[in-house]
């Protein structure tokens, strides 16, 4: 009886079946910046990284970017924020200028983003897709395939980062 209830509850919670394993090591990822430079995700180890995959046209991404900008100042040296636009015709420079973003905003292909998130290519993604990676390169939080608003909010995300920092300070 209780097992049936658990199964029923799991079926009713959207995305419960599609939970990909967290924590897991972050796969390598190359972010192409407008300057022609490219950044490897592995080069950012040693700091907590908030990596957001966005569409420059999505309103939620625009709002979340403002939250990320605030966080990057709040946690300055302890946190690295990166955004990757993967919509067609994305202009990350114009996007960063429009919202006053000081962290790097790069581009990538949709296929690469799917591969990084562990979602089959071609499946629809809700944006922004937010990934929080600890200083050892382990993914500690990741949006559901259709998006997780909790990971974009100015209330929750700082608490999550603080929890990660606290854990990293522990012996």
């Amino acid at each position: 009886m209780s097992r049936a209830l658990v199964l029923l509850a799991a079926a009713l919670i959207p995305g419960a079946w599609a939970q990909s394993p967290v924590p897991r090591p972050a796969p390598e990822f190359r972010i192409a910046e407008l300057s022609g430079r490219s950044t490897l995700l592995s080069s950012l180890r040693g700091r907590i990284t908030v990596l957001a995959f966005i569409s420059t046209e999505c309103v939620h991404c625009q709002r979340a970017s403002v939250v990320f900008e605030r966080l990057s100042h709040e946690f300055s040296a302890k946190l690295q924020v990166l955004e990757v636009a993967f919509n067609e015709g994305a202009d990350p420079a114009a996007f960063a200028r429009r919202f006053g973003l000081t962290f790097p905003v790069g581009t990538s292909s949709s296929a690469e983003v799917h591969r990084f998130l562990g979602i089959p290519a071609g499946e629809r993604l809700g944006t922004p897709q937010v990934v929080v990676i600890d200083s050892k390169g382990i993914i500690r939080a990741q949006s559901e395939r259709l998006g997780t608003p909790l990971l974009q909010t100015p209330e929750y995300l700082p608490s999550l980062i603080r929890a990660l920092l606290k854990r990293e300070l522990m012996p």
Partner: protein
Amino acid sequence: MIDTSLVVSPFPGIFFHLKQTFWLYGWPFLIGFLTIAGYQIVGRVVILGAVKWPTVFCLASLVSMTSLFGWVTMVRRVEMIPFYGCGAGLASAVMSRIYAITMPVHPRLGVRTPKVIWRGNKEDIKRLQEVLRGSRSVSDPG
């Protein structure tokens, strides 16, 4: 998906979910309620005929602006329809229990404020009928 081994304070999450629940379900309910109740109140005040036209104008404008503001700010998804409907239904049910809405002058503020006369309030209904009868006999002397 968040690593369950992380000790994150539950309050920001709870606050976020409360806020989200309000905007997703509470707000359509409230707008449904305010739209129906507001238009019915304006209708009844107009029918009463004892209120000056600027007051009617302001009340009607306020109600339609509230309704439109709600529609603009509401998350429009299929799931919100029952909540909007329940708000509208509750407003209709509440309004059906109201006998009249009058606009007496507030004793302290000195301005006209709405006063609800419920169907069960026999005393106020009788008083209102007497006032209306009196004003009719003054306006129709012949």
